[in-house]
């Protein structure tokens, strides 16, 4: 779904912004994987958003970690808009995005059954 079509350039932009709104930070590959988008399109939109100062990034090893730019002049209205868009998304997806496990899991450890 693409709720803010007409305002944003691409569906992947919307997904990126919602991901960063709920998770605070994210990597391009993780965002692409979560929404089932192509990594290329997510990376392309992240670069555009960074160029326009909507998001900022820092390097973590070989990866770039992105977050919404708190100094973006329209940060508050953007967050309000995204929050409104989020209300249209299915509860299950919002819950999965907001509440998924973030703590590390040792390699080789089985994944806990989900409730």
């Amino acid at each position, binding site marked *: 779904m693409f709720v803010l079509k007409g305002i944003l350039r691409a569906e992947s932009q919307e997904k990126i912004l919602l991901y960063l709104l709920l998770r605070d930070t994210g990597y391009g590959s993780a965002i692409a994987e979560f929404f089932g988008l192509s990594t290329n399109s997510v990376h392309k939109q992240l670069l555009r958003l960074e160029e326009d100062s909507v998001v900022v990034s820092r390097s973590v090893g070989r990866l770039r970690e992105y977050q919404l730019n708190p100094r973006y002049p329209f940060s508050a209205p953007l967050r309000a808009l995204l929050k409104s868009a*989020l209300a249209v998304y299915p509860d299950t997806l919002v*819950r999965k995005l*907001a*509440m998924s496990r*973030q*703590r590390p899991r*040792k390699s080789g450890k*089985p994944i*806990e059954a*989900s409730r």
Partner: protein
Amino acid sequence: MKNYSTTSIAELAAIVATHLREHDIQVVLVGGLAVELYSENVYLTKDIDMVDISYAKPAKLHQVMAKIGFEKSGRIFVCASTDITVEFPSPPISVGDELVTETTTVITPAGELPVLFARDVIKDRLAAYIHWRDKPSLVQALAVLIKYPEEADAIAAFCEAEGSAELMVLIRSLLATASERGLTNMDDLEKLLLERTLRSL
């Protein structure tokens, strides 16, 4: 070889702990199963995490575990008759910056099971929330704290020591709402935290 296909995870943990104790290996249950025991919640963990506080040599641990049908596979121990796995995280036991030196025991139908105190299980989960913003860990901490409200002061001191005094304000607020609405299970607590997260965006 014993068949564990109908053995509950808590009973299996007690069987393993008792068997190891009989071979002079002392273990303490930590992790998700400890959360499940204290919160009386169905958390559906499939792995048993036990810290070997007697620092047995790996070869001895492998040998003793093999006697009850568990073989090492990567970093975990697996058994053909159950999908429950056992892992031995490295000692010592610590939560946040604190070393844990005192533990307790719970009684299960299969015997005694050494386990962290409830307050340390809560601290362990809160440390995961503080360091990784892991919301499921906060939900688990709340679920245990609801059953052990007398630990609130110790938890407040822990949050302060970890530089997250404001977290206790959030915890007390969530506990108050949970109490008003009669919420105790993790699913409902997770919905409550989600509601609070969305409101704070």
